[in-house]
Structure formats: structure tokens, C-alpha cells
């Protein structure tokens, strides 16, 4: 599915200083029954966000109107557990384009990159700086620049670089995906498959 190109994102951010946020929290299994990719944002963080009767939980960050933005900032080991891409879909569908953490689970990171969410891994120290900046000003602007691979807190100018491989960076900046790439090399794959033992 096509996604928006990612170049520079300037936005306020939503803070979630919780560690080990697993994909069952991001979207519980009972909301995985759709056969199309739509509407998953409504159930993002469902059980943290809503009471069982559907009323919003006041103390959950997504229900706090002072926080908004296209960047989600979370504690370490974000996206652990199930491989459900629905977790990344829910985050994208809700309106986030970037998740910042000091550590990501592997499958979640891959899934995010495949659908146009940029996972930005920063040092634990820089993560703390972001949380502090948001605490001081809930509208604190964060700038994520994919071309220069830097993330900057506008108010303080504090900045850190982040890693992404050149191939994925090129894809994200142009809105390309792996399926395009693989379709273009099918002849090579066919030749390879002929030698396969299985």
C-alpha cells in the first residue's frame, strides 16, 4: 500500500514513558479480525485508552488534549511481542508518522519501515531530554530530518543522529517499497529457485 514520502517532519510529540510496550497493547488481538486495512487507529492502545464500556480513560496520554502531534515518543523495547503489522497500521492510521524510542523490537521496526512509519532509535539520554522538553512544554517541537538522519528538539537545539540503512532511507524518502524492488528482480529469483533443494 502506498504511503506518504518522508523527508522532514516537524511536529509536537505525544509522550509515553513506558517500557516494553508490546504489540498486544498497541492493538489487542480481538481487533485483528478485519480483512481490509482500515480503521485500526480507532483501536490503537484500546485497553489503555478506553474503559470496557467504551468511555475514554482520562489519565491516558492519547485522551489528554494538551498532547498531540505526528511523533510518538516511548520507553525502551517498543513494539515487542507479536509480529502483527496491524500494530504499525494502527499507529499510522491514528496519524503518527514517526516513533522515537531508545530501543525497538526487530519485527515492529521492519513492519514500520515497510508501511512508512520512521522508527528513530535514540540514546537513553536523548530520550530523557525529549521527555523533559515535552514536560516543560507539551507543544515542544521536534524535528526529524531523514536526509541528514538527525532529530532535534527545537527549543533547546539539542540534536542527535540516528541510523537507517541507505536502501530503506531511499525508499522512505521516495515512497517506494520492497515489493516494487522484488518484482523488478523476479528473473534472478526464478534462476535461484531452480537450484533450491526444497
Amino acid at each position: 500500500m502506498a504511503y506518504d514520502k518522508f523527508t522532514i517532519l516537524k511536529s509536537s510529540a505525544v509522550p509515553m514513558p513506558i517500557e516494553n510496550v508490546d504489540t498486544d497493547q498497541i492493538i489487542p488481538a480481538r481487533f485483528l479480525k478485519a480483512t481490509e486495512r482500515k480503521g485500526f487507529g480507532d483501536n490503537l492502545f484500546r485497553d489503555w485508552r478506553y474503559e470496557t464500556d467504551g468511555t475514554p480513560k482520562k489519565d491516558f496520554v492519547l485522551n489528554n488534549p494538551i498532547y498531540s502531534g505526528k511523533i510518538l515518543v516511548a520507553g525502551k523495547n517498543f513494539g515487542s511481542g507479536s509480529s502483527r503489522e496491524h500494530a504499525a497500521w494502527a499507529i499510522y492510521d491514528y496519524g503518527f508518522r514517526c516513533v522515537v524510542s531508545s530501543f525497538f523490537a526487530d519485527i515492529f521496526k521492519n513492519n514500520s519501515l515497510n508501511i512508512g512509519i520512521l522508527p528513530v532509535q535514540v540514546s537513553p539520554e536523548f530520550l530523557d531530554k525529549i521527555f523533559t522538553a515535552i514536560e516543560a512544554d507539551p507543544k515542544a517541537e521536534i524535528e526529524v530530518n531523514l536526509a541528514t538522519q538527525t532529530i532535534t528538539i527545537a527549543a533547546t537545539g539539542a540534536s542527535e543522529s540516528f541510523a537507517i540503512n541507505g536502501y530503506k532511507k531511499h525508499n522512505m524518502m521516495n515512497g517506494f517499497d520492497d515489493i516494487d524492488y522484488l518484482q523488478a528482480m523476479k528473473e534472478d529469483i526464478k534462476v535461484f529457485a531452480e537450484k533450491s533443494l526444497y
Partner: protein
Amino acid sequence: MSNKPATLFDKVWDSHVVRKIEDGPDVFFIDRHFIHEVTSPVAFLGMEGRGLKVMFPEKTFATADHNTPTINQHLPVQDPLSANQLKALETNSNKYGISHWGLGNPKNGIVHVVGPENGITLPGMTIVCGDSHTSTHGAFGAIAFGIGTSEVEMVLSSQCIMQPKPKKMRINVTGKLGKGITPKDVTLYIISKLTAAGATGYFVEYAGEVFENMSMEGRMTVCNMSIEMGARGGMIAPDETTFNYIKGREKAPQGAAWDKALAYWKTLKTDEGATFDVEHTYAAADIEPMITYGTNPGMGMGITHHIPSALAGDSKASYEKSLQYMGFHEEDAMLGKKVDYVFIGSCTNGRIEDFRAFASIVKGRKKAEHVTAWIVPGSHIVEQQIKEEGILDILTEAGFQLRQPGCSACLAMNDDKVPAGKYAVSTSNRNFEGRQGPGSRTMLASPLVAAAAAVTGVVTDPRELMA
């Protein structure tokens, strides 16, 4: 081929790289692809949108498991959304010529149980599925891991995915396991040492005496849980135990093909002198029956211990949030805690050996009155074995009912949900908040610990009930 010593992982990985992209991932060829009803429909939809076909339908196998009811499988599925997903899997499989073992098919069951038991999973293969517990198949010396739906679409349409090669970790467990210590305890012990993120970025090889002496069922339990410490997968070098398990299974090679395959499989081991990025060694003698007390699988401990006061590396706030959810306190003993539900099953512990272990404890005893127990085989073949071996009689005598195969209460997508606030001892793989139903509280453990809880109604050391 170079003569440089290589690891088992290197041998299998490197032989499946179609192309190396500079400053990018490897284009990685997939030998076997499993699909199920939950993570495949959007992939098929994506292919249709692009006008793509399935490149090698014979390399993909479909089974329905996540959504399926575990009673009355002969009746129409009640939940319309689940029924719709099951129908979509059938329709898509038929449309593209993919083998489909749907609800009611005698081969149906949990994807990671049916693959091995039908000889679809073989050593040296690369295996993926839109399910993180695909790591299970590593027990055969395969590279097997979970993927997202975009990648399911890639495999269907090109038989490849794009993967950066993970780093390598070896985990050795030396010595012999004591009485009542099962493969589940071994893996929960390792994860408790490494934490839920301790192997992120790595592919694990399990080695040493404990794994060499382990059955295939046990090896599958261990490899299955690799993802719970963040590893992409885990694998064990194939040996006589592996070959004996595979031989004669329906889709396993036969005759001359078997001899050829066997000769190759015997080369699948880590060479002397090959190196790993990280290596950990544990002693079997230090492992006791394990149980988790928190909301990630790294929060596990020996069943006779007390809940620790903090978890290495995690913030106090996250740790306290977890204990609060569970309704537990630092320094609590786990023994004696009340249990409301017991679940035995899942791709982790839903194989025949697990039900034998469970039966060995409940035999001659009665289910505790207040406990609701869900006994769910991993497949119809396991269900059949349970009946043939007389295990069903033992279960019935003790007041338990056998359900029909599926993922069931492991992720509670069907009706098998633990109610809010209730405690479950579960042989599954995840104790995340709400994993077994909104508000459910999960304690992960082995089939022996589950059985001991089922008959006593509280967390109990199974060794006290063993002859």
C-alpha cells in the same frame, strides 16, 4: 565455498541470499511459507491491487488456527468477523492454488504444530509466517522467523523478503535437568536471565547437553519462545533425534531423496572454531520449575522464590505498573497464590509430550472445583494421540474436558477468554496485559506446573506431586 569455520546459522542464511544490497538488507529466499487467517487477507488484497500472482503456490501452506472455536467445530462459526476471515483464507487459498487445511480438515491445527508433524518443516530450510512464533521451526535446524503482512505479500509474490542479517548468539545449557524440570522451564529461565529484550537483534543457536538430550517437542518449545527475549529466532543443530522424528512423515522426503537430504542435513552444524557475537552459558542444575509474576516473559522466577524487588535494566515505574496490574507485591511468594483458570495448549506447549506431562500429575487426582481448565490440543493429530494413548481417559476421570485444536486462550481471539481480574496459569508464551482477555492476569509455566495448579487450585511446585 570458503573453508572458514561457519556457524549453523551462517550456513543456512548464506545459502539463501539471492542478492546482497549494498548498505541495505539481503534479498532472502524462502523455502516454506505458512499462512493463517489473521495476517494474510490484507496481503492478498495488496497483491490484487497490484495485479500480482503467487509465484510458487506449492511453497505456501495455509491453516486456520488463531480465530477458530475450540468446541463445536462442526457448526458454523458464530462470530461473523472470525467466520469472514476463515472464509477469506479458504477463498484466497483456492484462488491461488495453495494447500489449505481449514476448520474441520483432519490435518488442521496450530500452524507451528502442523508444519513439523506433517514433515513440511525440514532442516536447512528458511521458513516464515506472519506470526512471531514461527521461531518454533528452528528446532529442526531451520532458519524460521515471524514476519509482517507486507512481507507476507512479498513472499507470496516473489518468494523473497528483504532482511538485514541478524547478529549471532549462542546459548549453552550444560549438565542434566532435574526431576520435574521441563523444556518450558529451561526457556523461561533463559529469558528471565536475558530479559524480554536481551536477544533483540540476534539469531540464537541453542547448544549443549540439555538440548542434545531434548525431544523434538521440547526443542520446539524452546525455539518457540526465542522471540520472547527479542531474538528473531532460535535454532538447534539437527541430529539423530531430528532425523528419527522426520522420517516417514507425510511430506518428508522418501527413498533416494531422503538419502540425499540426510547427507546434507548432517553438514548442518556449527564448525569447530566458528564464532558468535555473544555467548551465554547456564547450568541445568540451577533451573527449577519456573513461573512468571509480571507482564512480560522476562519477569519469571523459580517457583519456590519470592518476587524480586526490581528488574535489572527496567525503570521502577514500569516494574511497579506491571506488579500492580497483576495484583502482586515485591517479596510475595508465588507458591500458594490462588488460580482461577488453567490453560494447556498453544504452539508452545500443545504437543503430545505436553499432554503426557499434564496427565502424569492429574492421574488419580481431581480438578480443583473452582478452577476452569481449558485443555486444547495443538492439532487434530495431537488430539487423536491423546485419545489413543489413554490420556483422555485420565483427564476425564480427573474431571477435565478435552477441547478441539486451535490457538485458543493463548491470544483469546475466540471465545476462550480469561475474565478481567482472574488469574490463569498458562502454558502459552505471553503474559502481556490483557493477552488472554481484557484484564486477565497470566502466569506462564510448564505443563507440569499447570497440572499441579489445576488439581490444587493454587500455585504449586509440581515436584511435590510427583512420585
